[in-house]
């Protein structure tokens, strides 16, 4: 992969003391619009935006441009994308310093994919497997055991999926994103590619469950 470091960054990091200020101003001049866009994306009034903007600039300058020096142009990222990510992280740091950290429920939750898959199977119009409405062929005392067995089968089936397939299920059935948005996140050419992949993943899960004896209750 070729170098993606912009010339203004190389110039700044190589500059001797007398030229450093001009090189810094050049770099910021070229990327001000992006940093401001990141600062604005967290909301708030103009003062809040400008405070974030100034904070980001201050942090980028800190310790002889330590953060800017950490950019590696062989890591597969362009400088502008990296700068947007770094600026957003700094803005969030500032926000947390003011207001504390808000962790959404299930911020890191290993059952997310399993929950999404359960929902997927119960929603899918083509799916005959409904893990919540299987027939009560056993006594109620055994229901817990059956349910546990069923959930374990689903967990095992999910292990056979690729990380990308599990991520796809989460985006669609946990976050309930539209296919167009999922295509953007995953870098797929169109929403049709998303539907095609989803159908394949759900078919694979259904096949796995049916092979373990978890079958259609209605047909």
């Amino acid at each position, binding site marked *: *992969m070729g170098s993606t470091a912009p010339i203004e960054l190389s110039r700044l990091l190589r500059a001797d003391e007398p030229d450093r200020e001009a090189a810094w*101003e*050049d770099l*910021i*001049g070229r990327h*001000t*619009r*992006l940093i*401001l*866009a*990141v600062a604005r*994306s967290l909301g708030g009034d*103009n*003062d809040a*935006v*400008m*405070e974030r*903007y*100034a904070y980001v*600039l201050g942090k980028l300058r800190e310790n002889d441009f330590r953060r800017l020096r*950490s*950019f*590696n142009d062989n*890591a*597969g*990222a*362009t400088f*502008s*994308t*990296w700068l*947007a*990510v*770094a600026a*957003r*992280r700094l803005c*969030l740091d500032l926000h947390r310093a003011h207001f504390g950290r808000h*962790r*959404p429920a*299930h*911020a*890191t*939750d*290993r059952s*997310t*994919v399993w929950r999404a898959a359960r929902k997927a199977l119960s929603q899918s119009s083509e799916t005959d497997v409904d893990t919540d409405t299987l027939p009560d062929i056993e006594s109620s005392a055994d229901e817990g055991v059956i349910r546990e067995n069923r959930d374990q089968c689903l967990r095992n089936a999910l292990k056979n999926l*690729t*990380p*990308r397939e*599990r*991520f796809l*299920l*989460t*985006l669609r059935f*946990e*976050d309930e994103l539209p296919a167009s*948005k999922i295509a*953007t*996140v995953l*870098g797929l050419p169109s929403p049709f590619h998303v539907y095609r992949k989803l159908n394949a993943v759900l078919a694979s899960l259904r096949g796995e469950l049916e092979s373990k004896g978890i079958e259609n209750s209605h047909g």
Partner: protein
Amino acid sequence: MTDLEIAAYLDRGLQREKLDQFEEHLSQCAECRDNLMRTQEVVGRSRRSSRFIRSGTIILAAAAVALMAVPSLRRWGASEAPVMRGDNGAAPLVAYGPLGEISTLPVRFVWASARDAMSYRITVTRDDGTEVWASSSTDTTVILPSNVSLQNGTNYLWVVDAVSSDGTTRSTGNHQFGFAR
């Protein structure tokens, strides 16, 4: 996940093994998913905006070439109302901040860039008009030097003048800020 890895994911430059690890984490972490998607939106908007500006520049350049090349078009263009330049006709320069009361130092002045500006002159005064500090810059942001002390509870005014190559200027007008510890 590091900033570089997130950026590489957004640029589709992550290696397979890292990609699998990253998507595995994303499928379990709502906070990282949210952060990734919001960053992707900003980067996407920024790129669309850059493309729009580049396209606009090309169209304007093509129009300028056409006006120079075709005399009849030039005459048609000349029949339009003349464009006024200078202090009276130009739109004011936009000042971003500081505006109002601030409580942290250093003070960073930020304003929008002006087309054709060769340099910017910033002046900070007390509200009685006494000049506190003045400087010139080619950038659209400067930091008030640490040797310029601001008095707690005092109101200050700042103004930026953009100076073009033909000598015309555009001003932000006076903006007030105050410093309170």
